[in-house]
């Protein structure tokens, strides 16, 4: 399956090093268009612009959490189909189920590997292609 490598990706994490790691891994996978946000609260207005084809977000952030950002995206008629991947240290089963219920497309626990990221992205966009 061909994934559009030109898509606009938003990377949301309050730690700049983690944003850099995610961006570098995405670059290795052939993607090149990224923006960054350091919190759900700064990400939300960016997301509302409708620019992004894919959102990769942390959960635990000071102002607005990743799960809240996800719920806002899913509740918005124009944005609700945006693929959303959580990359987080949150590892309680109840939290993972909560994220599933909120409509997450993929869930990666930190620390993670490049192979895991690749696998999840493949899976997410295979499903997106099926939906279309």
């Amino acid at each position, binding site marked *: 399956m061909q994934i559009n490598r030109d898509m606009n990706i938003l990377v949301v994490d309050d730690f*700049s090093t983690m944003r850099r790691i995610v961006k570098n891994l995405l670059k290795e996978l052939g993607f090149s268009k990224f923006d960054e946000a350091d919190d759900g609260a700064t990400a939300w207005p960016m997301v509302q612009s409708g620019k992004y084809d894919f959102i990769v977000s942390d959960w635990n952030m000071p102002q607005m959490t990743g799960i809240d950002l996800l719920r806002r995206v899913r509740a918005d008629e124009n944005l609700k189909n945006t693929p959303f991947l959580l990359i987080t240290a*949150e*590892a*309680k089963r109840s939290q993972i189920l*909560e994220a599933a219920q909120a409509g997450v497309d993929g869930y990666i626990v930190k620390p993670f590997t490049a192979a895991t990221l690749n696998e999840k992205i493949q899976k997410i966009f295979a499903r997106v292609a099926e939906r279309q």
Partner: protein
Amino acid sequence: MTFATKIDKDKVQALLLAIENDQGDEAAQLVDELTKIRETELHEQLKQLTRNLHQTLDDLGEDTPILLHAKHDLPDIAERLQYVVDETNNASNNTLNSAENALGLLEQLETLSSDEDLSQEQVKPVLEKINHELTNIMLAQSFQDLTGQVLNRVILIMTALEDSLKDLIARSKHEYESIPERVENELDQKAQEEKGMGPNVTQKSKLDTVESQADVDDLLDDLGI
């Protein structure tokens, strides 16, 4: 002795009567008198508490571990931990800088190698730069030695502090073992999970967590995700 036993019942009855008869001034004065007793009683209790605290600290002696910890070790802990935060941040940034540079140099090499007349002179400086970046990455890992030493020191201080506190509890004739377990109510727990709690590193916080990405995948597979 409780406040209730100190309250003058006659005065309370007089107050009720004054209110019923609409005698505002009389009622106000009686309220003042009644609360004064209560204020004096509170004051006495506070004085007693303060005396007890002074006595306890005097009994401990100036060189008791808990007092020394409070003055000398605790203020250092935040500083030591801040050092760990800063050093790990620096190391991570330095490593990422060099890794990104090395990736760029590899790309350069790839472009060069598409040229058939590639000479040793062209390749060598790029290889040297890559070598330099990899050495930088290696050196950046020295943070582990430095922060490890600081963290071990913090663990020592915290363990000693815990012992001193247990000792203080014993001296004040309290049974450490009889201190009740903390009951987490379900709503608080839920709110905490919602906010996110970071890596689950303690035995207690590891309850009901997944152990690996494979566990996450299994869980989501069942839900068709």
